[in-house]
């Protein structure tokens, strides 16, 4: 049996293969941030409560502070850096669904998965999923509006264009 507590991991992140030497006890959050420079994933409570560190593993939202990086070998990891022009990103801008923005990557990842898995999500499903993320600025009303717009965009397969972004 292998005795070392460090290892080389080949991870599939945002469509790329990344190799990293890290502790077997290291969480995915710190491998993403400290080893791979993907700092869009935010450390918050480090206790699985706040959702700021949410990433997708095989399309499922996971709190990366609560998963070992070594568990994700052979799986597809998506971080906020891996999303481009998704309906929920545009909807967040349109609805100003953030203030300080620290929680935003975690919300976006979770909501992106919600939209992909439940394009017909009803109010209770939206509420159930969003309970996993905390916004200390309490932008919840705006976030909910953004979710509903992004769901509608998914249904009609029409993404809001950059031209529609409101500015003040």
């Amino acid at each position, binding site marked *: 049996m292998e005795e070392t507590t460090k290892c080389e991991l080949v991870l599939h992140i945002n469509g790329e293969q990344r190799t990293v030497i890290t502790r077997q006890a290291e969480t995915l959050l710190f491998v993403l941030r400290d080893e791979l420079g993907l700092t869009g994933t935010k450390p918050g409570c480090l206790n699985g409560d706040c959702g700021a560190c949410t990433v997708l593993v095989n399309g499922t939202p996971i709190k990366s502070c609560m998963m070992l990086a070594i568990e994700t070998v052979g799986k597809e990891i998506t971080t906020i850096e891996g999303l481009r022009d998704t309906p929920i990103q545009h909807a967040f801008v349109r609805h100003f669904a953030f203030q300080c923005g620290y929680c935003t990557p975690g919300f976006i990842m979770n909501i992106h998965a919600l939209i992909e898995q439940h394009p017909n999500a009803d109010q209770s499903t939206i509420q159930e999923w969003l309970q*996993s993320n905390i916004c200390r600025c309490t932008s919840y009303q705006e976030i909910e509006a953004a979710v509903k717009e992004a769901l509608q965009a998914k249904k009609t397969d029409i993404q809001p264009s950059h031209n529609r972004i409101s500015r003040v």
Partner: protein
Amino acid sequence: MVPFEFAYYRPQSIAEAVAMFIELEQKGKRPLYYGGGTEIITLSRLGLVSTAAVIDMKAIPECRVLDADSDPLVLGAALSLTELVEANPFPLLTKAAKEVADRTARNQITLGGNLCGQIFYRETALALLVAEADIVIAGPNGVRQSRINDLFHQHLQLSRGEFVVQIKVRRFAVELPHFHHKRRKQGEIGYPLVTIAALKKDETIHAAFSGVCPFPFRSAKVEAHLNDRRRPATERIQAAVNAFPRPILHDIEGSADYRLFVAAQLLEDALRELGETI
């Protein structure tokens, strides 16, 4: 963040997992079986868990079984609570699982992890206790199956090196009328003031509780009072609450008196929903 080093192992079979445990134990590594990992990582960060090796159960096929069509239905211990909720093979267990932590956390938390966790609420156990489910356990002495009620006394009484492989729930129990409610101090996420799971079988109410005491329980004394139909419901409920094991939790979430008050209210709801005259 885990502030110490451990080695990670991912066995592909029950036999490999047990052999790994024995070898690591002999080397003084104090191995832990690892399901979703949420509790091990959390408690490690807080200095409440220490190990030099974890053995991940999620690649063991028997631990990943979800057979909802068989009798008994079979639930692998490494199924996530989200997988259980979405498949909904046992509605009372679904209701219990859906109230544990939050949606994203439930994508990781496993049935086995919730049953065996150090954090003492272990709320999925309530549904299994009232349904009198069977539990399949593997360890250095082989694989055995027992009624969960014979093994769960405050927590699962497992020997060193044993782990939960599967839960088996007889089909008639799945279809019995039931009640589940989790009452928190506030909000919809968090630990309970009181959680009750109950079902009615052959006109007898089975009831199990979490949040009242620092352990989940199902009590014959409590159920004897609940089912004593010679007395009015209010007396049955009060006698049941008086028969709760001790100690009653008394902390920042709720005083002991308040928890007993909430438990009595929820028991009234349970009796009403299960067709008892209130």
